[in-house]
């Protein structure tokens, strides 16, 4: 079935200046695909690299925007006319302003009716939400539920910073992404999910690692920063950038069964450094990848962060400024600690010594040189390739696995002996008599480096397997389960 497609002025040079073109197809997607097959130059102007329609391209069937129909899958009747309609945007130099007034359309009044009948929100509050701009650092465990609820609530602009692709092991908690998204960029899948929930939200994606060089520029113009980071270096970076720019930080963090949340960097309120002036020594606090995390936990903490972000934008309610909320999912208990701004805080105190962003990897001792030093001086290492060659030669050696029992049950390297790191000092007697070489491994090589140091203190020479069982699975035996 052929349909008429109306081509807007800026795209006519790619259709030999024709205003209308006929294209075959039973759905909008099919018509557009046969159109771009006829006129191949159109494709790069209509579609972004990921195969999605560009943000500023709108498609109508007769008088209806396909975003409110069934998008690409919208079925066509004979005589339906398809229009490609541009949005035109631009503006003066500089970031978007903070003060905005925004009227609500009838469709929006319907959509947000449950907010509008709350006297605490009402029309004025919903307009503030619509004018609000929140930047989520990370589209992972915390960023997922926070971004989903903020989009549903009608936030005007939702920025997301991430540089990762979706991995199978993310799906247990990072609900922005689904099984078909594995391998895709997290930002692409985030944009799809968020605009599906609410096409009115302007989703701004920043596919980059947050650094001291770009943080201030990225944060400028946002009303609230929502910290969903998973490491100390980025957490201090987010905190310091928020303090310097005076943008509130809706903070959350999670580990195993416990989470915490607060609001930092408000004027006069405490910041993350008032709570934790120094980062813990590297390796002391394991990441979620090492320590595990209950999948629902970030759902609780991330939605608390989103709640705080909304109240900050509404300028109403009692926020977590000056309070640290602690949540234990295992015992199902909430506790609260009082926080005060520290007058001696190096960044938000009365006489700040930090006046710009610093090197946070160095500060947290995770720069490559410091990380090696932290693992103990001169820990001898070996690679998974060397280990494989040793196995193939049937060379005698002792492979010590220092992970926990439940990890050993998930996957193990054949022939290894399990002694969890915590039990190692009391079980040295189980190691072979001297002469036989000992290779130690854990999941990624951090715990085993400590084990090698412990063995050395006890006069036992051993080598650390670089990259742990993860490297072994990646580079030697992909049949083992990765976790």
């Amino acid at each position, binding site marked *: 079935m052929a349909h008429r497609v109306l081509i807007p*002025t800026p795209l006519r040079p790619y259709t030999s200046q024709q205003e209308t073109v006929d294209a075959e197809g039973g759905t909008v997607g099919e018509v557009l695909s046969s159109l771009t097959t006829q006129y191949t130059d159109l494709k790069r102007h209509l579609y972004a690299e990921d195969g999605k329609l560009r943000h500023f391209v709108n498609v109508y069937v007769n008088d209806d925007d396909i975003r409110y129909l069934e998008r690409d899958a919208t079925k066509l009747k004979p005589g339906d006319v398809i229009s490609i309609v541009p949005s035109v945007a*631009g503006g003066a130099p500089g970031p978007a302003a903070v003060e905005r007034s925004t009227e609500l359309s009838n469709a929006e009044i319907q959509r947000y009716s449950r907010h509008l009948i709350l006297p605490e929100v009402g029309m004025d509050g919903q307009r503030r939400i619509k004018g609000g701009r929140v930047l989520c650092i990370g589209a992972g465990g915390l960023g997922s539920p926070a971004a989903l609820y903020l989009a549903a609530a009608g936030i005007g602009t939702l920025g997301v910073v991430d540089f990762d692709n979706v991995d199978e092991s993310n799906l247990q908690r990072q609900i922005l992404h689904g099984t078909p998204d594995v391998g895709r960029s997290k930002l692409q899948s985030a944009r799809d999910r968020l605009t599906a929930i609410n096409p009115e939200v302007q989703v701004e994606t920043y596919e980059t690692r947050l650094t001291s060089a770009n943080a201030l520029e990225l944060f400028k113009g946002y009303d609230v920063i929502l910290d969903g980071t998973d490491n100390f270096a980025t957490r201090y970076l987010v905190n310091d950038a928020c303090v310097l720019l005076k943008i509130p930080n809706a903070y959350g963090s999670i580990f195993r069964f416990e989470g915490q949340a607060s609001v930092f960097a408000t004027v006069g309120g405490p910041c993350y450094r008032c709570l934790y002036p120094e980062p813990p020594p590297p390796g002391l606090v394991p990441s979620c990848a090492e320590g595990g995390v209950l999948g629902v936990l970030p759902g609780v903490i991330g939605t608390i962060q989103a709640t705080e972000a909304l109240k900050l934008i509404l300028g109403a309610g009692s926020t977590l400024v000056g309070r640290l909320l602690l949540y234990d999912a295992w015992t199902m208990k909430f506790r609260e600690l009082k926080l005060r701004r520290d007058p001696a805080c190096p960044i938000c105190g009365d006489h700040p010594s930090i006046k710009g962003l610093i090197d946070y990897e160095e500060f947290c001792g995770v720069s490559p040189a410091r990380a090696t030093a932290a693992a103990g001086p001169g820990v001898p290492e070996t690679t998974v390739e060397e280990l494989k060659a040793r196995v193939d030669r049937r060379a005698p050696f002792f492979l010590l696995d220092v992970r926990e029992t439940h990890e050993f049950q998930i996957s193990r390297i054949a022939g290894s002996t399990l002694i969890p790191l915590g039990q190692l000092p009391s079980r040295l007697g189980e190691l072979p008599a001297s002469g036989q070489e000992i290779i130690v491994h854990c999941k990624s090589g951090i715990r085993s480096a400590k084990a090698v140091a412990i063995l050395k203190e006890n006069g036992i020479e051993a080598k650390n397997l670089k990259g742990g069982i993860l490297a072994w699975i990646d580079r030697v035996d992909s049949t083992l389960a990765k976790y």
Partner: protein
Amino acid sequence: MSGDSVPAPPRSAASSPTYIDDVAIETIRLHGAETFPDECCGALIAVGGRIVEAFRLDNTTNGGAARRFRIGPDGYRQAEAHARARGGTLACFYHSHPNEAARPSAYDLEHAWPNFTYVIISVRAGTPGDITVWHLRDDRSGFDEGELIWPTGS
């Protein structure tokens, strides 16, 4: 609907001037002064190779109108229908830069369409100033400034 030449064809655009009537220039100035300190925006309708009308459109940005403008699909369709009714074409848009120069911003570049012509007016302290015209390069690397000519000035 065909037969009217677009005022600025895409490739030679930068070298050939854009002709615009006084009345359109006056509308742009007034519009920019009225919405100051916010940005104004609208479409420019060309008939017979010259811009004869500035058609005001609502600024529907949700990024703060002091620094952003957006003409949504509804506004675009309105302008297109108006151009058609006048027997003209739609190939040019204008907007104001409050308290900034009449030069495209990085944000303008990021959101520019090929083959459209962009007119920018600088409005300082509520008083309309320079008006310039810009054409996006084919490779999107930047804009080239064009020549904007109207009867009583340039």
